[in-house]
């Protein structure tokens, strides 16, 4: 600790703190403009000048480390004069368009001028007007308003590692621009806009929409991915006009395109606003009565096995709880499931038996300071961007060694110390190969593994594996494997992050292998690091916790008699045993594998109830359509993968007659049971906590009694000539964002990425038509030629209802062998 005094008051702060940090501890206000806590100090604005006794010039508090015994004066007449004059300089050539500036009312420059009494321009220079960048998507840059604080540049580089904007030109001409002067082509997270203290960088969708102070601002949780960013909805007149995030939140205000701009789906004119019965407009009484009585009739006539339900990870915990209650208590059926069945649920079962829990083993923020990070089978950029920010922080600011294992190049490649581009299906070999090399080098966490059951068996299993076999199966060189083992092994802590590309790889034992490797490097059970299974959608963990599964009750208790799982439900429909299906926020025809088969099944149903926001392809088949609410229009909670219970707070009313899902579920249950249950999200959470005591009251608890997972034997993967990978891209999340005009502005149309050499061989041109045929169906799309992929691999985003490429998949896998032709 270092002791100093500011304005005569003593304070002790950790070594390396700045004078500004020390002043904050004392509650002494030192003005700043360019300082932003989450990035490195810039020292550009010079308004934080302070006097330090014995130093003949004022020092800037934001970037001057403290020193033992120094005496600091935070303000005096001289410092005030400097600050005022600096502000006066800042106003030279600053346009006086405050009346129409987006930032008016929330502008740090306005506030500072007011604070320092800068009331008229004192300095002058020849008028200089720079071109406004109207050509950027979603963002607009007016360099004339810029005070060159560089917050945007630092956020872009230090948090995003996008490196697309920088300070260009010299002197008064210097502006923030793209490094090549071309139009902005980036992640479009808008975090630069969030950081801009003035009106230089603005959100185009918000421009001229309204004055900031006229909005109702509601703090809630983003409804897209399981990072669970706290966001602020700015709503007025039944619309959300923008979303912002505070740096003071768990995610430091760092959103992604979906979080910041994806709100536009809420305002979409395509929203469902009235119930439909037989595809005809109906009122709620008709719709609910019809749905309730038909469900009851089906059960009465055929038994509870005749009905089934699928829920969405976009529903709140309270809604998930009600959903399973509706089926279990009101209809007597355990036939409920969700998209977790494609891999996340099974992965949790493996984690559960090995580590005794579900979800991540530590808070997401514990990635920040892990000493080593392995990301495998996930394009973090697309699957859970907030996790990517954590990994970037660890690997670029906190000295973590990063190993990236993926089938294609992804954004993190540029900061990774080791990159393993493996063949699809060889995940188990890859992970076990690294584990073997770690053991061979004696780099395992000896203290940790000593107490874990099954270590001997695991060692014996690895001993049978040869490096040659690993190299042959994965296509990764022995040198790259050894390098990765050295990077991951022997570290005080490690974070292991894996996503759908691993869980749904189809490789037997892949999840077991990743759990075991995590145990081997000591990723589990420490302050830093952890094991993090990922999924693309927000409340996947809450969905499982609430018992939306055929075999699990809320809290992970066994259901006793298992109901039908997702695939068994489909089979049941095909066999005529399941006659009624209730889909809440689920559009199988866009997002599920085996689209052709599922369509046939759905068409066979006697009763299809679809509760939705949009007229999806599935809703078009429904007998009853119930218009539901977006996450901005309801209250409740989400549970992040790392176990944070996140409040969902209603920011605006639903459009038309649309109702909140919990409300619909309550009403429908009442129709079935004939009771008049009244439930609110608050009551429901209380009820959940009766069933699962203490749910969400503490973050992930350390899990005891670990054991190494026993993995099924891995087969050497047989490589197909051409394999299609279906997965998420950054600019969308699920299908929801495809209804957002903002996301569509950046990623308007679906495409199929094909490796350059493959495209050459098949005569497929960039932008040309490409026809994909798999065992599950065929589809024609637009080709995008890339060098990001390995030869033989194609990739298509899974979001677009107009191009439901997931339907080509078979079973749970995200990979499928395809025949590729010029379309």
């Amino acid at each position, binding site marked *: 600790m270092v002791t100093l005094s500011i304005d005569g008051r003593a304070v002790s702060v950790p070594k390396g703190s700045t004078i500004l940090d020390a002043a904050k501890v004392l509650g002494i206000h030192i003005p700043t403009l360019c300082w932003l806590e989450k990035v490195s100090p810039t020292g*550009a604005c*010079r308004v934080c000048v302070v006097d330090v006794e014995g130093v003949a*010039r004022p020092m800037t508090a934001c970037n001057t480390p403290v020193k033992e015994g*120094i005496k600091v004066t935070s303000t005096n007449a001289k410092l005030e004069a400097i600050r005022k004059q600096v502000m006066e*300089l800042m106003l030279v*050539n600053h346009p006086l368009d405050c009346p129409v500036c987006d930032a008016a009312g929330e502008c740090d420059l306005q506030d500072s001028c007011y604070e320092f009494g800068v009331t008229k321009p004192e300095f002058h220079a020849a008028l200089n007007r720079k071109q406004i960048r109207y050509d950027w998507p979603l963002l607009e840059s007016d360099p004339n308003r810029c005070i060159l604080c560089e917050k945007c540049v630092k956020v872009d580089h230090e948090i995003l590692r996008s490196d697309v904007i920088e300070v260009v030109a*010299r*002197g*008064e001409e210097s502006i923030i621009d793209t490094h090549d002067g071309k139009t902005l082509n980036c992640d479009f997270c808008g975090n630069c806009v969030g950081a801009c203290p003035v009106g230089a960088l603005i959100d185009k969708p918000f421009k001229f929409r309204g004055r900031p102070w006229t909005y109702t601002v509601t703090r809630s949780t983003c409804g897209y991915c399981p990072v669970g960013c706290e966001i602020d909805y700015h709503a007025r007149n039944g619309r959300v006009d923008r979303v912002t995030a505070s740096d003071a939140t768990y995610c430091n205000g760092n959103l992604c395109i979906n979080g910041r701009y994806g709100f536009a789906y809420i305002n979409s004119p395509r929203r469902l606003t009235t119930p439909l019965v037989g595809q005809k407009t109906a009122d709620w009484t008709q719709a609910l009565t019809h749905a309730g009585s038909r469900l009851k009739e089906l059960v009465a006539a055929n038994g509870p096995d005749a009905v089934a339900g699928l829920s969405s990870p976009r529903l709140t915990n309270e809604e998930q709880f009600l959903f399973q209650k509706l089926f279990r208590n009101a209809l007597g059926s355990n036939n409920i499931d969700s998209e977790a069945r494609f891999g996340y649920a099974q992965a949790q079962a493996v984690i559960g038996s090995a580590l005794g829990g579900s979800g991540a083993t530590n808070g997401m923020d514990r990635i920040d300071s892990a000493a080593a990070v392995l990301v495998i089978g996930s394009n973090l950029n697309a699957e859970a961007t907030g996790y990517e920010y954590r990994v970037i922080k660890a690997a670029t*600011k906190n000295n973590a060694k990063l190993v990236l294992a993926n089938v294609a190049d992804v954004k993190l490649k540029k900061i990774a110390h080791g990159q393993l581009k493996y063949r699809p299906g060889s995940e188990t070999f890859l992970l076990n190969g690294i584990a073997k090399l770690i053991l061979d080098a004696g780099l395992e966490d000896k203290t940790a593994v000593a107490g874990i059951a099954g270590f001997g068996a695991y060692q014996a299993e690895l001993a049978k594996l040869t490096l040659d076999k690993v190299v042959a199966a994965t296509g990764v060189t022995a040198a790259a494997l050894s390098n990765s083992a050295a990077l991951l092994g022997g570290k005080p802590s490690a974070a292991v992050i894996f996503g759908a590309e691993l869980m749904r790889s189809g490789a037997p034992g892949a999840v077991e292998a990743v759990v075991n490797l995590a145990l081997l490097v000591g990723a589990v059970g420490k302050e830093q690091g952890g094991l993090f299974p990922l999924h693309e959608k927000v409340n996947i963990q809450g969905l499982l916790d609430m018992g939306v599964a055929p075999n699990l009750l809320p809290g992970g208790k066994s259901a006793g008699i298992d109901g039908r799982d997702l695939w068994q439900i489909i089979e049941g429909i095909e066999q005529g045993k399941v006659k009624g299906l209730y889909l809440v926020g689920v559009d199988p025809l866009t997002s599920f594998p085996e689209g052709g088969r599922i369509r046939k099944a759905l068409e066979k149903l006697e009763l299809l109830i679809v509760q939705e926001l949009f007229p999806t392809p599935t809703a078009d088949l429904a007998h009853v359509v119930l218009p539901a609410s977006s996450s901005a229009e309801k209250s409740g909670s989400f549970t992040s993968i790392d176990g944070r219970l996140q409040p969902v707070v209603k920011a605006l009313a639903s459009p038309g007659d649309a109702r909140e899902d919990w409300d619909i579920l309550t009403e429908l249950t009442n129709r079935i049971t004939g009771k008049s249950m009244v439930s609110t999200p608050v009551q429901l959470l209380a009820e959940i906590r009766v069933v699962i005591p203490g749910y969400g009251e503490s973050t992930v608890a350390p899990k005891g009694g670990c054991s190494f997972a026993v993995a099924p034997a891995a087969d050497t993967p047989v490589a197909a000539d051409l394999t299609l990978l279906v997965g998420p891209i950054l600019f969308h999340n699920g299908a929801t964002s495809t209804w957002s005009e903002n996301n569509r502005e950046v990623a308007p149309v679906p495409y199929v990425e094909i490796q350059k050499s493959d495209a050459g061989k098949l005569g497929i041109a960039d932008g040309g038509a490409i026809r994909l045929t798999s065992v599950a169906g065929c589809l024609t799309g637009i080709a995008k030629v890339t060098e990001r992929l390995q030869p033989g691999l194609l990739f298509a985003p899974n979001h677009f209802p107009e191009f439901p490429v997931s339907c080509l998949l078979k079973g749970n896998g995200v990979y499928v062998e395809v025949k590729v032709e010029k379309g």
Partner: protein
Amino acid sequence: MAQVMFSSWGRTVIDNRAGGDVKDASFRLPVAFDGARPLNAFMGWDGIILFDKGVDIPIMAAEYMTRIQTQYCCGKCTPGKKGTRVLMDALNGIVDGRGSERDLQLCEEMFELLQNCKCTLCQSSTIPIFDAVTHFRDDFLAYINGTKKRPAELPYRFIEKYTAPCQDKCPSHIDIPAYIEAIKEYRFDLSLQTIRENMPLPSVCGRVCPHPCETACRRKNVDEPISIMLLKRSASDHEWQRNHLPPMQPKPRKGKSIAVVGAGPAGLAAAYYLALEGYPVAIYEALPKGYGGGMIAVGIPAYRQPRALLQRDIDIICSMGVEIIYDCRIGKDLTLAQLKTKHDAVLLAPGAHRSKPMGVEGEDKGYKGFLTGGIDFLREAYLGLPTGMGKKVCVVGGGNTAIDCVRVALREGAEVSTLLYRRSRKEMPADIWEIDGADEEGVSFEFQVLPTRIIVDADNQITGVECVRMAMGEPDASGRRRPEPMPGSEFVVECDTVIPAIGQDPDLSFIPMESGIDITKWNTVVTKYLPLKDAAGKDLKDGMGNPLCRTLITDLDGVFASGDAEIGPLTVVACIGNAHRAANVIGRWLEEGKVYLTDDEIIEDILTYLGVYDKNEQVPWLDSAEREEQKEVHGKQRAAYKNYNEVELGFTEEQAVREAERCLRCYRVAMAAV
């Protein structure tokens, strides 16, 4: 003798404009900028020097500020960005007849306010402006009153140079503040890009450079210098550690080709810069494949410079379009004349690899255990050839090569490794951290001793060295005390191997007499230079005693020289700076048929001669950030048999950023009226 009309340089005012009692002043500046065009006035961070009364100071001040604002101000702090703009507009307003006395007051206010700039560029630029409006007020008033108008043309030109004390001191003139700032901003990639503009062997000069820059670091005036060299290593390590490919792309291939003799630092550097310009370059290297790098490879042991990283730097240079022809000694496998025929230009960069004799009785008798020289020993150890070394090794010398020899001797299996030096430890020319490194590894030292005789047994096998202890004698005519033998202090150091490491000479035997290429008495190649003279009529010399502004062409047209063979044995960084210059000159010679230096190169040399760093400057700054220290492998084990693993481990990136934060970014601009 040129009379100084006015000077405020160094904050001392001399004003001879009114005539009368003329005060003398001399500055380390040439009378004529390039030996021909007179230097009329000079303006910069330390004031104004006026030699010719005809120079219009208001115009010069306006132009100086215009260049600061439009070409150099980074825009990254408010006072700098806006303040210099306000000044530029005010000064130009004055000379364009739109000014008022308020503008002069404004210049004074800005001088005060810009003390608060982020760095010294804009702040220091207000100093000559302040001096101008203070001491040349009447000249400004003449414009303000309308009695004077901006002339349509000026009889002189302005030539400016952007520099910093560290950048100036670096013989390669790397833009050090820029690469450090990039690290501060976590832009290791941009940092390396900046480094490569003047330094194509970043992994090397990030490790083994004697870093003269750090002796001219202004942070030293606050506490300790910035760890400039290690930050270069951080930028270079970042690239390979994150598997990045170097981003450089050579220009389209040109027709004329260049032969380079020697794949050492100078040869590689010249080849790199010529290849970037699109020239095909062939380097002829005497050593076999895999042993490129010249003195870096054969003279610097791998525990200081890992071979894989040296090779990576060489591979990158080759990937720009440079071919290295190994096992080809010019003068033996090919003649210089043949090279000249095959290529359009030839650059001689053979280095200095011939050991100097140590002048001890018995050294020429061919005793067993007496090795030719330190550099030969290091080369053979590196090539894996028998070195002839025994178990008890004595190395004679005090430079870095001597230290390398004693440390390598341990790694080659010596049981005792002793260094004999005739002066004291603190007088050793070797870098202090190298001496400490040897100490830690268990080397024994005998200071202030002079070997006088080699002792051998009947088989002519060395058994020891007879030495005499030295003491400082009486000051000689120059006032310097020289070590002198103390009679009766003779003693014998037991050993079976003696390695003289006294120094090296270039071996220029491959240059035939009839080529016309002249060679100095120090055995270096003579190159042409600009006739820069000071006010007293003396030739200006650089720090090595060579003429200041050399074009690096030899007396034979189309043949240039660079590196240790041109400068005299010096450092990697000096060779690279020299070779970069040679590459530029060769390019001009090939394209334009003329050999000349640009104004920018000339003013660069002039500033180095003048001195940019002032060790007496009071730098007001809080000394609250200590210099970061890198991690190092400790213990004798690091010098175990054949253990050539790197000893110094560099900064973590977090440390590098913290260290970069300490940089004061001491940019400044000088401008000459010529």
